[in-house]
């Protein structure tokens, strides 16, 4: 399946993550062979994701491990002259999650994902900007030109709507700003 430049650009991230159907993946692969801009975008995205992958595992604070080991730890020493301290219910409530390692792992992954979101989003936005620059500017120009005396606004309206569609990721009509 042959993909156009805009469609392929939108699928790059999913392609890198192996989330595409074999048909779409083949389409992206084929497009990458032909399109230098998408290759460049693909490399930038790959590098960003690789950098994220190289981040050292987040070291939890010491209290985390202490709390994790707490159930196996020997009973607390009694304080002289005082009744044994009752278990700190509030702490145990708060640490319920750490008694379930799968949940803990999921929580850590969620935190990492949230922290990385702006970085990935910024990259994706820039990739999108790469695609939309010309269309955005031609749109603004056409709209402004339509305010000029004696300009043909029916034609300029057509150009502006063509650009609108590209800006939201749709395939441009033949002959619109694009390859």
């Amino acid at each position: 399946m042959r993909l156009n430049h805009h469609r392929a650009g939108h699928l790059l991230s999913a392609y890198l993550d192996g989330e595409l159907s074999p048909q779409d993946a083949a389409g992206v692969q084929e497009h990458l062979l032909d399109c230098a801009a998408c290759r460049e975008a693909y490399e930038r995205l790959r590098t960003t994701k690789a950098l994220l992958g190289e981040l050292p595992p987040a070291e939890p604070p010491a209290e985390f491990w202490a709390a994790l080991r707490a159930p196996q730890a020997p009973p607390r020493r009694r304080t002289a002259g005082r009744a044994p301290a009752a278990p700190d219910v509030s702490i145990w409530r708060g640490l319920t999650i750490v008694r379930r390692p799968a949940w803990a792992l999921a929580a850590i992954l969620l935190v990492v994902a949230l922290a990385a979101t702006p970085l990935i989003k910024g990259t994706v936005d820039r990739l999108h900007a790469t695609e939309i620059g010309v269309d955005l500017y031609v749109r603004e120009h056409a709209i402004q030109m339509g305010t000029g005396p004696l300009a043909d606004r029916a034609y300029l309206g057509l150009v502006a709507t063509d650009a609108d569609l590209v800006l939201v990721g749709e395939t441009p009509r033949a002959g619109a700003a694009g390859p």
Partner: protein
Amino acid sequence: MPARALAAAAAAVLLGATADLAAPAPPAPPIDATRVVEMALEAPRLIDYEGTKVITALRGGRTETVTVAESHKRPNMMRLEYLSPEDVAGRLVVDNGTIAWHYEPRLNMAFEDQTVQQRLLGHDLTLLRRNYLLTLLGTDEVIGRQAYVIALVPRGAGVRRQLWVDRATGTVLRSEDRDPSRGVILTAYFSRVSFSLNLPEALFRFRMPAGARVFPMRTIEGDSMSPAALAKRVGFPVLIPTVLPEGYTFRGGAVSRFGSLTSVYLRYSDGGNLISFFEAPAGSIGWPAFGQPVRVGASTGRFIDLGYFRVLIWEQHGLRVTAVGTAPTETLLAVAGQIDTAREQALVRDVAHRVESDPATVRQLRGEGLTFPEIARTLVLAHQLGTDLGTTVQFVRGTLALREVAQRLGMRPEALRQTVREAVRRASAISPVVPPSGGGRPPAPLPHP
């Protein structure tokens, strides 16, 4: 271009058409090209119409013909329903004078934008008359109606326009845009039109189709900001064209925001055509995958010929600059090549020295978007006429006609005309080089960067 020829062109532009000096209009003025243009500009305020228009335009290396049902309600409502070709059939543009909707039926998508028609009603004929030679070619018949035929030929390089203006209503029945190097690039004519209808307002109200996805497209902030104000708003420096084709002057600046992309938008107009400059930090936007590599000054850029529009993209001072317009390719390349941040301060000092002004004033005028030739002209004129800078800038920019300045100064227009001519000659001799005009050949190809 020799300095004498340049001065003559600049003087012609500043002094404008002889109509500038004419006495107040008599009750029934004889028809001439200027009067026909005025009729065409007034028509939208006076009349409703609906008709079918056929547009043929150069688009992406081929010619495309589009048919559209066009309705207009005075003063500023518009409805466009595209009928053919198939891939635009049913597409709708509805502008109620406040909000403009673009609707794509194929995808059930609606795009909402604020209307920019207000400026249409406040158009400035002075600049058009200064920069274009307006000629009444005669009369012709269009779909059985009598029409005046006028030609608008730019005094500099650029697209010339021919209009068939309805004698009875002033509506443009037919138009033709001709590029100096490529011939006709756009024709539009009504194949059917009805006038004097009181079209219902409901026709200009957009009704959202069920399930349509709506995309707000209000990408422009501000409209008439100066480059200095824009730089403060966006936090990156703004490049101002050093020189432009004669007659083009700054008409306003804005911020364009779309997603993470923030750009500065500078508009330069000669009254009939527009060159748009968009500037964004180079890292925030990539090179398009298409277009032709070209040399811009000492670096490489990308030239894209869209047919009716031409686009030139290059990098300067850490900014990605994109110029869009119908100006000839060589003009765009020359304008781009003249923007040189390294020379900016030297030019400021040089022009200040030559016109016996201080660099701070020159810098201030640059911050208002004036090119160096405009600054030289402004300062020389202000000195010779004794006018304040604000008034002189308005005159140089064409928002103040020669007749109005003469009235303010209590001078005879003819005497003022002579003074202006001398001032322009002097200013032109001390201005930086102006880009060559004419031509429009495609740029010489470069190896892919």
